[in-house]
């Protein structure tokens, strides 16, 4: 892989950033606020969205309905990728590099090929299209070429008749390679120029971000208190129940269908077609039920699909590619390890005056989505507060480790750990209550964000925190636990707030789309590219939106999800399964509704507003006239088009990368959590006892689904804050690549999670005003736990995870252990 072909000289330019899209496209579609708008009609997307945003009575949206997948999952009937494996299909596994950094001369395949049952070993030489899969920067091969850059990097796909043969052969793949010095520490890698992870660059810095707002010197000059610290966070592994897998089935004319554990089928289609050198129309990608994704299958999914497709392309037979748990942990990108230097100041009246922040991400061997993650972390680095003066610098730094990747929160959990730890320390120095101090600084409608974007509406965090403080008994508990700060077991209560931009950043194009078709019997098929990975949007909220709008019985609605046969609906990531992903569903359903209303108005000769469609019936002036099924049959016989797409392109603004100022996101979701803990100062054991959440996420479409998202994120946040940590050996190998040595919380660690407070701060473009929620509860958890620990111990943890050992060390210093 030569440098010139990678176009690496373009690194760092704003135009290479286009989340989930390729840099070429980003260059063609320059960031701009000018978007094409069609004629305004009743079917105009904005009119449709506004109508349902303003709907006064809702019958289905806002209620907890049963998910469509509950029963089949409980009965074990739901099918995941592996369940589609048939007798006689070939199987494949990846051969991984067992060296962290080396010049690759050859992949020695012959011993593996001698294993009986092994049919083929595919390397970079066998790629008919482009061996280039970098999402943000074109720096990553599908199979190692020229160099190996991390221990565990895929170098070959071994295909055989059965797993025994393939498993045996994988271990026999050897590399002819010249070892190179290894960089594991991002701070060191940043300074080194003699060792380069990517030879075409003049440093190991893959990407930079910056914010320059106001005058920080002046801001700190006005500060009466200043707090400065360095925070460190660590790699987190996703541990989805289902490791990566893909089943590629070739059919006529070199067309290929790939079933994969993937969060964005259309992106998979694009990567597969690029690697195979086929038009996208020759590639179909389907995500059946997925056993958890959390972002990991957004990064790795298209690559698993492409590797399986490559094998099927060459062998002309169906191939099932699978990762073992160890393969999965070694190969796929992780939540970034971060080093964050944070200085912030406030005046005596409790107002923030300035922040100065440096964020360094351990990006690993390939940028993957690192630049997007760093961008998000940078532009959220103030927390949801008004900050007049800010200087923020961010760096993605290459090292010889597993790449940095997408993981629930996408750069925000580490940065919020820093911000919210700072906020507590500033409050302490000011002699203020942490909640009071936050309330003074929290964004309100009309305020300007860190990037100078004015948020006119949908900013409910102030109310959320006020109500949360009251309902959680914050003031009394804060006082009570504070006074009891003695003895072995100590209680603490901590608070943290967070914000998270919805949609892609800046002017990076983002859209929603769906196709709805009503059959003659009244059954409704909804086609969407949004996948079902357990989050529940296709299984619950999508059905609710359609049922509400069409007024048809909810059991008539079937969501065909996760397929490239549906219009490109964008990825199921960034909390967008409902918030952005379902806008297209609202528009398509709204269009059909509008046609049916026009038809009924004409049919009965009454004004449109006298016609009502709900509960599976048609009413005129409140009287039942016909059933949904009768309506559909009639509409078919009278020439009403009952198929519609719902394309919606999100309006965005401009952004100046030089100073990091401008339009960052179309909307923000907000959360506040209060966490109560108990610390055993003699062992360092931290128990999270209670979690009180409050969310400002616009319209809550399905409260039960939101509750499950909050619970899952809280627990994943507890794991990240207290116990989960990947350990690397001196040669960059992940030592704990199994579930014995990498521990995640179990039911024993589940705290009492109180019902969330909802502030429905509607977003004008969200479905019925909904914003995203999936990631939200994870983001403030590490900070809230750290703040509660500080309250309990009178000392602060600056490095995560707060393992028993670290907490014990801190407790021993301050409490005498």
């Amino acid at each position, binding site marked *: 892989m030569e440098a010139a072909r990678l176009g690496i000289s373009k690194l760092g330019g704003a135009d290479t950033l286009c989340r989930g899209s390729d840099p070429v496209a980003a260059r063609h579609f320059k960031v701009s606020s000018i978007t094409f708008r069609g004629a305004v009609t009743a079917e105009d997307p904005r009119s449709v969205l506004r109508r349902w945003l303003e709907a006064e009575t809702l019958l289905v949206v806002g209620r907890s309905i049963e998910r469509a997948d509950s029963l089949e999952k409980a009965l074990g009937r739901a099918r995941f990728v*592996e369940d589609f*494996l048939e007798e006689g299909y070939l199987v494949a596994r990846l051969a991984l590099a067992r060296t962290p950094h080396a010049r690759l001369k050859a992949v020695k395949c012959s011993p593996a090929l001698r294993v009986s049952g092994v049919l083929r070993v595919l390397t970079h030489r066998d790629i008919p299209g482009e061996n280039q899969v970098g999402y943000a920067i074109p720096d990553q091969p599908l199979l190692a070429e020229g160099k190996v850059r991390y221990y565990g990097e895929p170098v070959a796909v071994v295909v055989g008749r059965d*797993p*025994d043969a393939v*498993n*045996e052969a994988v271990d026999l793949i050897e590399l002819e390679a010249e070892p190179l010095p290894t960089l594991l520490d991002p701070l060191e890698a940043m300074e080194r120029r003699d060792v380069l992870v990517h030879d075409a660059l003049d440093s190991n810095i893959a990407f930079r971000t910056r914010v320059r707002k106001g005058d920080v010197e002046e801001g700190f000059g006005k500060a009466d208190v200043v707090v400065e610290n360095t925070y460190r966070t660590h790699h987190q592994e996703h541990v989805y129940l289902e*490791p990566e897998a893909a089943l590629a089935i070739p059919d006529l004319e070199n067309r290929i269908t790939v079933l994969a554990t993937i969060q964005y089928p259309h992106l998979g289609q694009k990567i597969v077609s690029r690697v195979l050198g086929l038009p996208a129309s020759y590639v179909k990608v389907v995500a059946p039920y997925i056993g958890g994704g959390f972002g990991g299958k957004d990064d790795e999914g298209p690559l698993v699909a492409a590797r399986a497709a490559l094998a099927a392309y060459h062998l002309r037979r169906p191939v099932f590619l*699978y*990762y*073992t*748990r*160890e393969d999965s942990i070694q190969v796929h990108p992780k939540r970034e390890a971060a080093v964050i230097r944070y200085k912030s100041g406030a005046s005596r009246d409790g107002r923030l005056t300035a922040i100065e922040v440096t964020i360094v991400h351990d990006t690993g061997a390939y940028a993957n989505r690192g630049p997007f993650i760093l961008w998000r972390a940078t532009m959220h680095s103030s927390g949801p507060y008004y900050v007049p003066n800010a200087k923020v610098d961010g760096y993605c730094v290459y090292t010889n480790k597993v790449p940095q990747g997408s993981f629930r929160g996408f750069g925000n959990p580490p940065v919020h750990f820093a911000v919210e730890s700072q906020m507590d320390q500033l409050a302490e120095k000011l002699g203020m209550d942490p909640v009071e101090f936050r309330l003074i600084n929290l964004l309100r409608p009309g305020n300007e964000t860190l990037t100078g974007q004015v948020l006119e509406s949908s900013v409910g965090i102030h109310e959320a925190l006020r109500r949360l403080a009251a309902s959680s008994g914050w003031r009394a508990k804060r006082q009570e636990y504070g006074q009891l700060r003695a003895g072995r077991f100590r209680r603490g209560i901590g608070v943290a707030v967070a914000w998270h931009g919805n949609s892609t950043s800046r002017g990076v194009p983002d859209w929603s789309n769906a196709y709805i078709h009503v059959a003659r019997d009244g059954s409704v098929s909804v086609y969407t590219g949004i996948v079902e990975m357990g989050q529940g949007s296709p299984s619950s909220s999508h059905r609710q939106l359609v049922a509400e709008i069409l007024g048809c019985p909810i059991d008539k609605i079937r969501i065909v999800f996760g397929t490239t046969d549906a219009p490109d609906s964008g990825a199921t990531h960034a909390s967008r399964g409902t918030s952005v992903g379902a806008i297209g569903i609202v528009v398509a359903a709204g269009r059909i509704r509008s046609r049916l209303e026009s038809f009924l108005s004409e049919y009965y000769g009454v004004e449109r507003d006298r016609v009502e469609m709900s509960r599976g019936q048609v009413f005129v002036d409140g009287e039942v006239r016909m059933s949904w099924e009768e309506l559909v049959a009639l509409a078919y016989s009278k020439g009403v088009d009952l198929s519609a797409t719902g394309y919606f392109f999100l309006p965005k603004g401009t952004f100046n990368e030089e100073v990091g100022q401008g339009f960052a996101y179309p909307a923000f979701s907000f959360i506040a959590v209060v966490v109560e803990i108990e610390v055993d100062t*003699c*062992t360092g*054991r931290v128990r999270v006892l209670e979690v009180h959440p409050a969310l400002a996420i616009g319209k809550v479409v399905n409260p039960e689904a939101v509750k499950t998202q909050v619970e899952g994120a809280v627990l994943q946040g507890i794991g990240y804050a207290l*116990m989960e940590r990947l*350990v690397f050996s001196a040669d960059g190998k992940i*030592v*704990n690549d*199994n579930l*014995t*040595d990498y*521990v*995640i*919380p*179990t039911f*024993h*660690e589940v705290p009492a999670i109180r019902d969330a407070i909802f502030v429905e701060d509607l977003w004008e473009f969200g479905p019925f005003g909904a914003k995203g929620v999936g990631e939200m509860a994870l983001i403030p958890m590490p900070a809230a736990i750290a703040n509660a620990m500080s309250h309990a111990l009178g000392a602060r943890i600056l490095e995560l995870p707060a*393992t*028993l*050992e670290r907490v*014990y060390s801190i407790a021993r210093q301050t409490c005498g252990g």
Partner: protein
Amino acid sequence: MYYRLPKIEYFRPKTLEEAVGLLEKVEGSKVIAGGTDILVDAKTSRVRVKALVDIGSIAELRGIEDLGGAIRIGAATKLQELLESSAVSENLPLLRAAVESMASWQIRNMATVGGNLCNASPAADTAPPLLAYDAELVVVGPGGSRTVPITKFFTGYRATALGRAEILKEIIVRKAEWTGWNYIKLGRRDGFTLSIVAVAVLARVRNGTVEDVRIALNSVAPTPVRAYGAEEMLRGREVSRGALERAAREVMDEVSPIDDVRSTAWFRREMSYRLTLDALTKALGAE
């Protein structure tokens, strides 16, 4: 699918003699009981296995029996059976407490007590209580039957006193009058995990004097260990905070832990002190 065992010859003998005969005859053969350790090791190639002799259907290796003066536990008895046995809960509460902290219900229904001992992990959870009880292990092999005290059973890292083709048949624990016991396991999470350190303490205290005490730990040395030095310091002494602290400090000096992904050696040493002190405090009624 994802994990496949290499090709393994499999035998399921009905009698102990048959099993011993197979182990003697079949090269590279190993014993399988519940399989919760060896199957994982075989799948990940940590242990190379050519043949397995399944002792799960040998009747005399199963079951828990109250012999009057002692409790007999068949080596292939499932952990869940220990948990549900009244003989165990009445006579061996320390063992019960340790088993309760182990794995999940599903795994306890497969895993056996003998397997846990013969796997000889430094972190074996049934080892500290059985070490404290001074259990006797009855071993059967080509040369007949012999009894090995558990304190001589663990000979090194993942090594035992079992000779070629020998099988652990049963565990005998003599009843004794104990006035107190305590088991504490500290792991990275609350359950379903390997210990950072675990401590088992048995004690007989009369009129404020320690008549006898046993202290055993796991995960602090190449094998599960007894802390003889600390026991000796306490025997015959009056129960006092100072005596307990001195004993716990002695444990800290006796152990030889290592750094691994679960913990540093330093923290293990610190916790050997803390958990021993806590367990002694409870078992000796010094609260």
